């Protein structure tokens, strides 16, 4: 499912001028949420580590909850992540990405080792306190090991993850190994998108406030939208034109067949 070679094999070129990813390194404290690492290393970026507070309903919700913006392949049933924060920009995002240039999904215990996610991000429900990793490339795990939980705080129930649980700016450099260069940067503007707006209003905020209170909203569950009504987007002029054209050709063909019958009949 994840690895299927796509029609358009757009390899992720190293020439891509990828701006450094906003890295607000913050693993979740204990069970306060799901720690998410996105490895942009093979795209020339860093490996930002963030915390999706609470208990996100699935891997995609965790990704969003941590302030990343996934893009799904436009024609692929099932949520296939083809870009994260708009990268790689050269993936057409039609069907699944090529097998040597795609976002692979990994799970780990804090401080443990990565295991490949056999279930897609929209089906897997990460438990609070675990670590999710997304790595771009040919299916290699993120280059950083899963971080241990940040400074242990008093056990809180996930439901009360709120302002208090969000890491304060002073805790923005936790005991994470290997993300040194990434943590040094403060948040550049991540690709703004309507869906991510609620999750990352901090993009323009000053000095790396990792998770303000507003983001601790209940986990988004906008993946399953079965009850959404079918609503066409405006007047389908193209479709009408095409139908008219097809009808014209078909009626011309029918007339031609009738004429031929007449000729044969005489």
């Amino acid at each position, binding site marked *: 499912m994840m690895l299927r070679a796509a029609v358009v094999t757009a390899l992720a070129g190293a020439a891509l001028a990828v701006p450094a990813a906003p890295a607000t390194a913050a693993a979740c404290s204990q069970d306060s949420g799901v720690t998410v690492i996105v490895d942009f290393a093979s795209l020339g970026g860093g490996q930002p580590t963030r915390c999706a507070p609470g208990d996100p309903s699935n891997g995609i919700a965790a990704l969003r909850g941590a302030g990343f913006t996934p893009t799904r392949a436009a024609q692929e049933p099932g949520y296939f992540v083809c870009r994260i924060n708009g990268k790689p920009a050269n993936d057409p995002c039609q069907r699944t990405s090529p097998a040597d240039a795609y976002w692979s999904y990994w799970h780990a215990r804090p401080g443990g080792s990565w295991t490949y996610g056999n279930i897609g991000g929209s089906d897997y429900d990460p438990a609070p306190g675990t670590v999710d990793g997304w790595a771009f490339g040919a299916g290699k795990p993120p280059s950083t090991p899963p971080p241990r939980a940040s400074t242990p705080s008093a056990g809180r129930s996930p439901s009360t993850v709120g302002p208090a649980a969000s890491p304060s700016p002073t805790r923005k450099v936790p005991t994470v190994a290997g993300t040194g260069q990434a943590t040094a940067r403060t948040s550049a503007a991540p690709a703004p998108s309507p869906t991510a707006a609620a999750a990352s209003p901090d993009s323009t905020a000053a000095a790396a406030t990792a998770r303000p209170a507003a983001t601790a909203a209940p986990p988004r569950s906008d993946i399953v939208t079965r009850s959404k009504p*079918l609503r066409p987007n405006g007047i389908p002029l193209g479709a009408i034109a095409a139908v008219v054209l097809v009808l014209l050709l*078909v009626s011309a063909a029918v007339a031609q067949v009738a004429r031929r019958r007449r000729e044969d009949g005489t």
Partner: protein
Amino acid sequence: MAPDMSWTEPLPRALHPMAWWLWALGLATAASRTTNPLLIAVLVAVVGYVVVCRRGDAPWARAFSAYLILGLLVIALRVVFNALIGASDDGHQLFALPSVALPGWAKGIDLGGAVTAEQVLAAVYEGLRLAALICCVGAANALANPKRALRSLPPALYEIGSAVVVALTLAPQLVESVLRVRRARRLRAAPGKGLRNLRAIAMPVLEDALSRSLQLAAAMDSRGYGRSNGAPQGLRRTTSAFVLTGLLALCLGLYGLLDGTAPPLVGLPALTAGLVLSGAGLAIGGRRVRRSTYRPDPWRRAEWAVGGCGVVCAGVMLVAGSYDPLLLHPSLYPLVWPDLPLLPLMAILVGVLPAWLAPRPVRAAARRAPQLQAAAA
């Protein structure tokens, strides 16, 4: 048809079969580049219109409708499979089928469940594309004369081609032979139907055909067929060497393309070398055959025009697709109406021009009609 019409319009003749194939393959290439249902629908309508306008009376000219049905079957197969076992995580639910979990030996597949609009449309889009390819092939089958196309076989395949020509000529005669044997049996008041009767018809027909093959061989021998064995030993050895190394390179190339870890030299370069070597082997091997062509098919302006339409259509589509793939592949997530992009549409409409550019086909009925009118007058 009024007699003075023939001044304005070229005389009816059969277009070179390769021109029709070139046109059809060009449209097929264009179809394979898009999943936009609007473009595909226009393309199928274009192909159908050209077929209706320019097909002859031969039996194969009626093949197109069978291809249309085959295309519909392909779409139906895709939709049914996608609805039954496709992934439907999200989207707008159309209806829900009762869900059945298959046992472990069947991969534990969940049959049924919710069916979403996106899922069905994805199957329809992909199926439409495949159906369009099938329609293009069907159009070529309906328009191109296969017996004339046989002349385009390389000379090295002369014997095989001759055998196929014999087969094409004999197959209708076999039916005639069956009728003859049946008539003879009826005259002898043989019992009516049944398996035994079938055998009593089939065996004489077979014997008849086999003895006819010997007569044919004798006739060909007496007319000097196949006296071309004078290929020098050296030429034959070169041919074999080319052919065998070419085949080896082709196999290596195919393996290289299928195996992701093979060194790059084993892939495409080996395949190309194999093609070149095999082609050279065929060309050299064909030199032993010298033959003249009876009534060669000309390649005139109409052939250039029809073939050119196909090439232009495919070329523009390829360019348009590389500019903006989203135009040719409408989004399903989110679900939107597909657009009708202008440039690809124009490319497809170029494909309809052969309906006027190609000369009218020679038709028995049309030829008969003026005579009948003359007789009636």
